[in-house]
Each structure stands twice: as C-alpha cells, then as structure tokens.
C-alpha cells in the first residue's frame, strides 16, 4: 500500500498572513506603564483603568500552574498585549479594509452571515473591526456589540457582570486578561426573547509575537434563549503567540444558552482561555467545543449550576497532531437541588500529539437530587502519541446519581478488516471510523463547521496512515 506523507494539516485558508500593519502596537512586556498606555489608547473609563492595574498586581502575585502542559517557553516580555489594526469599528462590510476583509471573506464569515447567522462580530488582532445584527433583533431589545462600546454605552450592566463570574484571582492568566483585555463581544438578550438564528463572533490574530485577550460577556435574561458561535484562527509564525481570552456567561432563570466554539489556532499558539457560565433556576447551558489548533491548549469551560433544576451539557472533541499538546476538559459545580450535568468528551491523538481530558465534577452539600453523567473516549491513531484522562469527581452529599466512565484504545483491526472486505481502502476505512467516532460531537455543530471538521479529519488522517 502506498504511504501518504502529510506532515501538517493543510491549513491553507487559516495560514493567510497579512502584512503586520497596525495603527498602534504596544511595546512588548507587562508593566504598570504599559497597562496605563493600553488603558489610555482604549479610552477606558477610570474604573476600568483602576481595574486593569489591580489585575496586574494580582497577576504578579499568582504562580504559574504546577500541573498540565509545560508553558515555560511563554515569555511575557516577548509578547505585545495590544495591537490596534489600521481601521475602526464598522457595521458595513464594505468599509472594512481590503486585506482584513479578504481574510474574513476566505474564512467564509460574510457568507455565513448571509446564510445562517443573525449577527456577526469580527475581531482582528486586539480590536473588533466589524459588528452587525439583524434589525428585528435590535427592535426586540437584543444588544450585540463589541465590549468597548458596551463599557461606554451600558456601564451599569457591564460593571455588574464584568469579571464577576470569572474573578481576576481565578488563575494567573485570568489576571493577565483582566489587565490587558481588549475587544470581544457583549450580548444581552432581554427577558423572554428567543434568538432563533445564531450570533457569531470570529477572532483572528494576525500580528506575530502578540496576544489576543478578547472578553466575551453574554447575559441571557429570564426565559430568553440564544445560540452563540465563537470561531478562532491565526496564521502560523515561528514565535509564540498567546490567546488568553475570557468568556463570562449568565444564563438567568428558565433561559437557554448554547455556546459553540471551533478553535483552530495556528500551531505556534498558546491557548490559555477561560470560560465560565452561571446558570439559574431551570435554565440550561450547553457547550459544544471543537479543539483542533494551538501548540498548547489549556481550556476547561465551567458551568456553575446555581439555580434549582439548572442543567448543563458539554459535548467536546480535541484532535491533537504533531507537536500539539491539547489539555482540555470541563468543570461543573452543582450548587442547588435537582441540578444535572451530562458530559460527552472525545479526543483523537496522532503523529506524536498529546490529548489530555482534565475535568472536575463537584456536587456540593446542598445539591440534593443532583445527577451527573460523564463519558470520555480517547482514540490513539499511532504508537508515538499520548492520551491521558485525568477526571476529578468530588461528591459531597448522598442524594446523588453520579457516574463516570472512560475508554482508551485504538481503532479495532476487526472493524477495519470488515470495512476493507466490503471494498474500502484502509485509509477510507480508518477515516470512516474516526468520523463515526466524532459523529456524536459533529452532529451538534452548526452544519458548516461539521463539514469543516470532517474535512480536517480527512486531511489529518492522510498523514497518519502508512
């Protein structure tokens, strides 16, 4: 059988590099002066300037994690934390500068907006360059805007929620985020409003040796519902880039939020992102997550089930190839009666890639009648890759139903043989099995992403068989 050699996934569209042109790029490093400068450039209100400086103090006090992937190569003195692109925020696609527009065009963003989205935000480096939303939603009182506009126009709403769900002392990179955050999206869905077509924000980091620190704050008020999609990518450079975004989600009583992410950062990216949701009475929070890119990823979305009867579901897949260390997972805290969580996590590792599923389920004393079911499966496609499962199950009351199961292994030779006896090539048989393995996740993704994920699996597998 002929061997196919494809060392890296064909990232074609993701690797388009634009010239590193910017209106303003902060000097590298992290000092109070740099933070003051960012604050000034962003025309922050005084409370935000003080908040940033306080966060920097916290950052300096906190330790790097003593667990997980080695991130010692990250040198904050080599990272520019703020890069303002050569454009201003626009709500008309035509007004976005040509090279930036071309990038997003190739990523399919405006096309998706026309076909299947009710609003789009596009961030390029540290600033949002485009934001729009269907008029009928605006009339219903839905707010979808960039974070800077939200800080300016809805100060009370922002102050009440900004970094309250994810406090700055949560961990070192949250504190960093608090100090240098820029861009991101703000969504408010008023009581009872159902946003039936998704909103999407796309984050693109073009500038080398820089960081992206966007802040996403979503409030879905009582009885409202929303599907929000987040996409991320960057071209590959030889030096390290850093993504330390923060996502705060408030799902009020009886509300519903689905948060879908397709993360396809380049393989020089350290993705140290933090995502947390506070879920109210009888509300539901669903996470759908596909993690394909990054050199190192440490990402553990978290649901805090504070309201009685609150529910959450996490469906996620990680796909680690050569040189990648994807340490992903999920955390849930059951904080009230009859709360429930369902976790379905899958990972595939190949060509020396490492996937780790790391999680925590905590059922507190007051969570009588809580139910939690966790399932994780890992697939190894060769004998040079690594796959670890590190789940913590912390049960603090008796009236619970908790179960966790995990499996690890390779594609069964018998199954490959069966498919080959039906006339398939070994490559096609393996690709079909892997697609089948990923299907429970891909079926939860918006259709264009599911297609993209299947293409990624095909491309990746071409390099894996031989």
């Amino acid at each position, binding site marked *: 059988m002929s061997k196919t050699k494809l060392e890296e996934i064909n990232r074609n569209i993701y690797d388009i590099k634009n010239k590193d042109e910017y209106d303003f790029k902060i000097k590298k490093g992290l000092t109070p002066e740099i933070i003051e400068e960012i604050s000034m450039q962003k025309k922050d209100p005084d409370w935000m300037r003080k908040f940033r400086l306080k966060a920097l103090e916290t950052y300096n006090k906190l330790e790097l994690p003593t667990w*997980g992937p080695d991130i010692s190569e990250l040198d904050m003195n080599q990272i520019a934390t703020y890069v303002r692109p050569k454009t201003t925020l626009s709500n008309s696609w035509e007004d976005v500068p040509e090279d930036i527009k071309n990038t997003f065009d190739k990523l399919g963003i405006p096309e998706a907006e026309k076909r299947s989205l009710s609003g789009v935000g596009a961030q390029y480096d540290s600033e949002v360059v485009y934001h729009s939303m269907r008029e009928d939603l605006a009339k219903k009182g839905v707010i979808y805007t960039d974070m800077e506009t939200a800080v300016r126009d809805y100060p009370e709403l922002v102050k009440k929620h900004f970094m309250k769900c994810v406090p700055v002392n949560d961990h070192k990179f949250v504190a960093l985020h608090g100090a240098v955050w820029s861009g991101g999206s703000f969504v408010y869905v008023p009581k009872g409003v159902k946003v039936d077509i998704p909103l999407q924000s796309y984050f693109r980091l073009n500038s080398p040796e820089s960081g992206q620190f966007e802040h996403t704050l979503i409030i879905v008020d009582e009885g409202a519902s929303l599907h929000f999609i987040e996409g991320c990518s960057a071209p590959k450079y030889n030096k390290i880039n850093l993504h330390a975004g923060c996502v705060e989600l408030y799902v009020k009583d009886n509300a519903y939020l689905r948060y879908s992410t397709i993360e396809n950062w380049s393989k020089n990216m350290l993705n140290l992102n933090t995502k947390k949701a506070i879920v109210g009475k009888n509300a539901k929070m669903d996470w759908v997550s596909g993690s394909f890119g990054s050199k190192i990823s440490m990402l553990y979305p978290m649901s805090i089930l504070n309201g009685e009867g609150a529910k959450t579901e996490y469906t996620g897949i990680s796909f680690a190839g050569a040189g990648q260390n994807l340490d992903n997972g999920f955390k849930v805290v059951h904080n009230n009666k009859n709360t429930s969580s369902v976790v379905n996590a899958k990972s595939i590792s190949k060509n020396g890639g490492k996937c780790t599923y790391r999680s925590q389920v905590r059922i507190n004393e007051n969570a009588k009648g809580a139910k939690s079911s966790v399932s994780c499966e890992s697939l190894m496609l060769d004998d040079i890759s690594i796959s670890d499962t590190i789940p*913590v199950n912390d049960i603090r009351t008796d009236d619970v139903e908790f179960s966790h199961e995990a499996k690890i292994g*390779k594609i069964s030779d018998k199954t490959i043989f069966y498919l080959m006896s039906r006339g398939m090539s070994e490559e096609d048989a393996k690709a079909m099995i892997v697609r089948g393995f990923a299907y429970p996740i891909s079926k939860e993704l918006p259709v264009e992403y599911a297609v993209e994920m299947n293409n990624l699996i095909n491309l990746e597998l071409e390099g894996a068989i031989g």
Partner: protein
Amino acid sequence: MILNETPVRTAKNFNINNIKLDSFSMPQKIEPFSNVILSKNGKKVKIEEDTDSINLVYGLGKDFLCQVKENANQKLKITIDENKKEDLQIDFEFNNKNKMLVEDIQIIANKNSKLTVIIKYTSNEQIENYHNGIIRVNAKENARVNIIFVNFMNDISNNFIAIENELEQNAKINYCIVDFGGKNSITNYYSNLLKDNSENKINCIYLGKNNELFDLNYIAELRGKKTNVEIEVQGALTDNAKKHFKGTINFKKGAKKAKGNENENCMLLTDTAKSIALPMLLCSEEDVEGNHSSSAGKVSEKELFYIMSRGFTKKEAMKLMVRARFNKILECIENEELKNEILNKVDERLD
C-alpha cells in the same frame, strides 16, 4: 504534613494531588512492637528478619520511607523457593504495650512458586495506635501470589501503608484489601508490570465511619506486552467519613495488547459523608484497551424499601446492602473464618 502525591498533578484547587494532614505529626521515637504471630500452613513459625535495602518508586513520602529504613521495629523477609507452595498468615495486634508498628515486609516469590499470605492489623482496644509499613513483593517468572491485606485498626489510630509490586514474565499478583479504618488510613499502592503477560488484580473494600479519612492512591504501570491490570474498589461511607480515591493505570510505550480496567464505587450512607475520586488513564501506547468507571450515590430507595417490606429495619436493610456489595470482593478470600470476621466487622461498624 503533605503526603501521598499522585503520579501526575492536576489543578491545585481540586485538592487531590496529595493529602494534607493538619492534626497529625509523625512520632519521632518508635517504641518496640512484639505482638506479631506468624503462622505457616496453620502452624506458628519464625521468618527471616533481614530484608534488603528499600528503594520505592512512589511511596507515601520521604519521611515515611526514612522512618521504615531507620526505625522499623518489625522486619520480615519471605522467600518462596522455586516450584514451592506456601500459605502464610501474619497477625499484628496492637494493644497497650504494642502501640507503634513500623514494619518492612519483603516477599520474593521465585519461579513457578505459589504463595497465599494474609496480613492482618488489629487494634481492638480504644487506644491511639500508629502504623507505618512497607510491603514489597517481587513475583518472578510464572509465580502466583495472593495477598489478603486486612486493616482492622480503630478509628482513633493512624494507618500508613506503602505497597510496591514488581511482576516478571507470566507472574500474577492478586490483592484483596480490606480497609476498615483509622482516623487517617493512607495507602500508596504501586505495581510495575514489567514483563510480558504479567497480571495484577486488586480488589478493595473500604468502610469509613465517624470522622475517618481514607486516602487511597493506587498506581499501576504496564510495561510488558499483554499485561493486565484489574482494579475493583467498593466502598461505603457513613457519618462524616471522607474518602479520596486516586487510581492510575499507566500504559507505557511498548505495552502492546495490554489491558487495564478500573472500577470504583462509593455508597454514601449519610449526607455528610464525602467521596472524591480521581480515576486516571495515562496512555503512551496505541495498541491497548483501557477503561475506567467511577460512581457514587446513596443506597437505592427502591431496594431498601423491598428489603424493609420483608420485615427488616432500615439499619438492617442498609447493612445487608453494604454486605451484598462487599461480598463480591470477599469471594477472593478462601479462609471462611476470616471472611465471616470481615462481615461481622461490617455489621459492627454500621451499628
């Protein structure tokens, strides 16, 4: 004091990477311990007391290792010759004159040998006792070793034990661990399945009451081809008892066709009991099968109701449910007398 580190760390705020014992301090002066009975095939015997020097891969921590190295008050070396079969029992009984036991047990099962050994620790008097022990087992080619480890220490004592096993070609080691207490009962268990076709089964039951704390750190590393590890842990916690279970199955590169299964289940009998589990699967080899499952919850209301409708009180029904759960594990004990003693202890602890 911080001890019993997991082989791989996870987030610090999950509070599971190690165990911190605030109210415990290690005794500096070790008093003699002589209340030990050794019996071979039912008859009292003397066993060699010169063990080899100790080097542990994991263990509970440096201080505990040093104490055994320097101050062990019991050293036992058991060597089973090639093709021989032995049945042994070692009883350590704590009392007013034997309050501290620091022991080093070394077992070498040579080629084709068979050994069954019961190691039992009892403290019936309500006196605070201290136990720090190390058990090392080396199972050579084709050896079969069954170890029944029974901890009946009282709920004001401290029990620390580190176990290390090394398995050679086709060797099998089975453990049945009955862990019924101690104010702190801390176990570090490590198996190195070094050579092809070796097999290690661990069946464990624990039963915690009052404010007892269990910290069980089980680690199995599979290196040989077609090696097999099975870990089955069944536990029950009542009152304010707390348990940490950390189980790691680590498939090392080269362990082709290896299998590892781990199942942990915790019955919570009161709403103040706490169970934390960290069942880890680490894998650097493609051609393996690894599974783990973990569950926790209270006794099924329906099942309780069914038993109570047959005339049992709630407490009796509860005891029956716990005994039923433990029975499967206790099947691996052939000694009926010991099995009954364990079941009686279950009843006693749940009274």
